[in-house]
């Protein structure tokens, strides 16, 4: 398998869909023709074939007889398989069941109109989670006492951050491999003014580093080690998505102010430096949530959502305020009460699913928390946790345990990366595997 990064206009996610035969026929035909002459796509298809070959090539060492012995033994100890019985009054029972369902549905719908407010239990500290899988690192021994963590990769392996020089005139950006403590230096930024705000995002394949006015903006390909300068784009970078299916390429969201004072929203593909215009006359508040880009037209309050993979736009339903999209949830924050909507609150698959259908998310609302203070910010969301902050104090809303956990005081930063919660103090970093948190 090759880590070469040649350029092709077909996103990897699109090619993956083609490979799985789930593209519309006209699009599939287009890719059919394209791949015959595109060495980049051809190589990636070869890689998909190779992944398939590798997954198929190896087998369990458990013999069929061993499995059968256990099954046979248990089956023979049991009673015969359950038999379905025909009930003579089945039609009447079916009718009764329908009536019960209709009444229940009506009650559910009524309750959705006026959700009951039940205070969310809050607990004082992370000890409430009991024994969970975590590790604490002495950052000063890894990257020096001035290292400020800003991002963790979604697999919890790489930590990104920066160190401000003692004279306060520059900062160096580094990536630390937590297991080996190896430090990978990316770039140095000479400040144009003291105390610049710096940012860093870290994805599967890319790190994006920058300062507040985008005079310093670079992307770093973690696989090839290539550093690309984007500061000449004359655009303000609003957000970036470096993870997931689109993130294998890496996408930054840019806003360009035209001479007529119109904001043009465009995406920048980090892999090849190409731009694509999404909309004109937009407000400067666009954000990326996984594969979704949410923005507002400057002439109205209506929020739009653009799907980066299918390249389709649509209006966000009025009842959904796109404060944050996380896996399985769309958040709406109103006054002191936070809501999130689920495609179907009763389905267990939703909690761990993806937000890919806004119509479905608007169908019902599910109250999750009521003890949030005014001004509390939703920082990030994962399948398990929602990270919140209020006046410098961080909280985690545990979606499995249905309660708010107060995180330790004095954190300089905190974040969620896939199934990792990371908490940075002045000189230490604690990384918690959220898969290890008890369910109850």
């Amino acid at each position, binding site marked *: *398998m090759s*880590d070469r990064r040649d350029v092709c206009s077909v996103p990897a996610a699109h090619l*993956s*869909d083609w490979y*799985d*035969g*789930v593209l519309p026929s006209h699009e599939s035909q287009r890719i059919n023709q394209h791949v015959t002459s595109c060495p980049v796509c051809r190589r990636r298809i070869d*890689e*998909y074939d190779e*992944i*398939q070959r*590798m*997954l*198929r*090539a*190896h*087998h*369990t060492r*458990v013999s*069929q007889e*061993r499995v*059968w012995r*256990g*099954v046979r033994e*248990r*089956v023979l100890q*049991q009673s*015969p*398989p*359950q038999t*379905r019985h025909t009930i003579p009054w089945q039609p009447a029972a079916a009718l009764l069941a329908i009536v019960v369902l209709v009444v229940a549905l009506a009650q559910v719908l009524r309750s959705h109109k006026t959700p009951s407010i039940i205070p969310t239990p809050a607990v004082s500290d992370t000890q409430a989670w009991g024994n969970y*899988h975590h*590790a604490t*690192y002495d950052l000063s021994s890894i990257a020096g006492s001035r290292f400020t963590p800003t991002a963790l990769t979604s*697999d*919890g*392996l790489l930590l990104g951050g920066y160190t401000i020089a003692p004279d306060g005139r520059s900062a160096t950006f580094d990536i630390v491999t*937590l*297991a*080996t403590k190896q430090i990978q230096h990316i770039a140095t930024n000479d400040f144009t003014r003291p105390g610049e705000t710096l940012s860093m995002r870290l994805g*599967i*394949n890319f790190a994006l580093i920058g300062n507040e006015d985008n005079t310093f903006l670079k992307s770093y390909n973690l*696989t090839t080690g290539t550093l690309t300068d984007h500061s000449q784009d004359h655009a303000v970078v609003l957000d970036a998505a470096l993870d*997931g*299916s689109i993130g294998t390429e890496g996408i930054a969201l840019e806003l360009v102010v035209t001479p007529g004072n119109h904001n043009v929203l465009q995406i920048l593909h980090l892999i090849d430096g190409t731009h694509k215009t999404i909309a004109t006359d937009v407000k400067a508040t666009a954000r990326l949530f996984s*594969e979704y880009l949410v923005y507002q037209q400057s002439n109205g309050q209506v929020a739009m959502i653009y799907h980066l993979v299918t390249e389709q736009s649509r209006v966000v339903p009025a009842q959904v305020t796109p404060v944050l999209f996380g896996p399985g949830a769309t958040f709406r924050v109103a006054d002191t009460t936070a809501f999130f909507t689920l495609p179907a609150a009763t*389905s*267990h*698959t939703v909690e*761990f*699913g*993806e937000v*890919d*259908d806004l119509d479905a998310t608007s169908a019902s609302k599910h109250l999750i928390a009521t003890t949030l203070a005014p001004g509390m910010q939703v920082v990030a969301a994962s399948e398990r946790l929602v990270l919140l902050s209020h006046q410098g104090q961080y909280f985690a809303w545990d979606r499995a345990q249905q309660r708010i956990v107060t995180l330790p005081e004095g954190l300089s930063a905190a974040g969620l990366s*896939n199934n990792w919660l990371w908490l940075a103090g002045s000189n230490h970093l604690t990384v*918690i*595997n959220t*898969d*290890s948190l008890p*369910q109850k």
Partner: protein
Amino acid sequence: MPATLAGQFDDFEALFRRYERAVTGYLWRMVGDDDIACDLAQETFVRAWQHYDELRTYEFQQAWLFRVATNLALNHLRGRVAFTSIADLRDDAPQLHLPDSTNDLAEREVIIQILQQLPPRQRAVLVLRSVYGLSCDELGRVLGISFEAAKIALRRARAKFRAGYLREEGCRE
């Protein structure tokens, strides 16, 4: 055992012989351990026997078995720390999960290791698609998710597996 039940048991054994390799192989890729895969496969077929009266009439018996196996695997994984658990990364812990350049890991071990680094549902869709050829529709039915969610999970799983493999390759070089 009465004759009718014995006949039914023979039919059940035929079903077991037909699908056992797929079910155990799938579970092994899901949990990364032969013994656990064996236990979960046995549980899957015991449940198949318990519902055999219905199951034998199903057109897609394999999909039913995969669904039960998936639920058992996810339940098992939920109670277990991830393979690339942070304990392995602790300062005082041996670096178990990272490839060791002095110890040339067999491809089998590497594949299983990378699979275990994927979120369980992504692992499930990648294996069911790549090894057993399930369509996104079938993946949705097996995992109880929508077609779109299955498609996205598959994309992500493939991208993550590829990235994981490249990382392993890089570490070995």
